[in-house]
């Protein structure tokens, strides 16, 4: 039953992605991208990961705002003159790769443990000793800031670099006026 609920949300996400690809109106396309993110929030809540759900719902909302404010300054319709391969060729290539993917997925799926019984070796140590070693009752916080601090340092550096990059590309001061 639980897997059925999860699968229905995953199907909803796939439908949202297909609609976002196929529709011509760019605003509708961006909003159906939002379906993917918000369905992912529900999935995280169902699987018991509130930290990820909080981050995902806020970042998704902020991303939607950025996308919509970008679309406001451009045309709302997609440019219809798109050149591509002939349809026969793309259908056959698509079917070929889908078959390869399904074969690989079948081989991998037989090896996977069932849902709800993860194979933990490293995480078991964190779960049993994390509280007494760090003193933080939120174990996710203890892992990302204490045990795996280098990851967070890298993430902060990436954010810093991207903010500097945006501010440098779009700056006014010191630019040659052409």
């Amino acid at each position, binding site marked *: 039953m639980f897997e059925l609920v999860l699968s229905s949300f995953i199907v909803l996400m796939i439908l949202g992605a297909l609609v976002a690809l196929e529709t011509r109106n760019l605003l509708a396309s961006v909003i159906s991208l939002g379906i993917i993110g918000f369905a992912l929030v529900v999935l995280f809540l169902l699987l018991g990961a509130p930290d990820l759900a*909080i981050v995902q719902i806020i970042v998704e909302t902020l991303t939607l705002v950025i996308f919509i404010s970008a679309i406001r300054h451009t045309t709302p319709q997609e440019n219809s003159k798109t050149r591509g391969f002939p349809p026969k060729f793309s259908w056959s290539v698509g079917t070929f790769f889908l078959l390869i993917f399904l074969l690989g997925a079948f081989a991998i799926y037989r090896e996977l443990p069932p849902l709800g019984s993860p194979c933990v070796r490293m995480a078991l140590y964190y779960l049993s000793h994390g509280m007494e070693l760090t003193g*933080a009752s939120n174990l996710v916080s203890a892992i990302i*800031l204490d045990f795996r601090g280098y990851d967070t340092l890298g993430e902060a550096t990436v954010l*810093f670099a991207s903010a500097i990059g945006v501010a440098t590309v779009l700056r006014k001061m010191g630019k040659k006026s052409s």
Partner: protein
Amino acid sequence: MTLIVRSIARWMIPSIFLLGVYVVLHGHLTPGGGFAGGVLVAGSFVLSILAFGVKKNKVETKKEWSSLTESIGIFLFWFLAFLGILWGSYFFLNVLTKMSPGARFHLFSAGSIPLYNLAIGIEVASALFTMVFVLMVFREKERP
């Protein structure tokens, strides 16, 4: 924006900001943490710009502040990690827990993890705010 958006935003902006500060400060006790709280704080500033426009917000001063706090945030994080070496051990050692292991489930517990959360919150909030703000404002200036 219209009057409806402005009146609702006037009530929502302080509460979103407060929720962000709460999530940052209680990151080691409840779900959330520096990243989520920082994005919430940045979101309150972005909502203010969206609702009231660029002119009323005095954004030029805000931009200088945000690039300053961004540098402060990442420097604070790096400095806290470097404290481990100064203590005589490895990088990213949780020094404050080693000094005084004690209370659990309190606001002042878990050593330097709340400080790490605070640094990450400052960094994420000001970096995201700088990005959104630069993309919006420099666009609006170019229009006649």
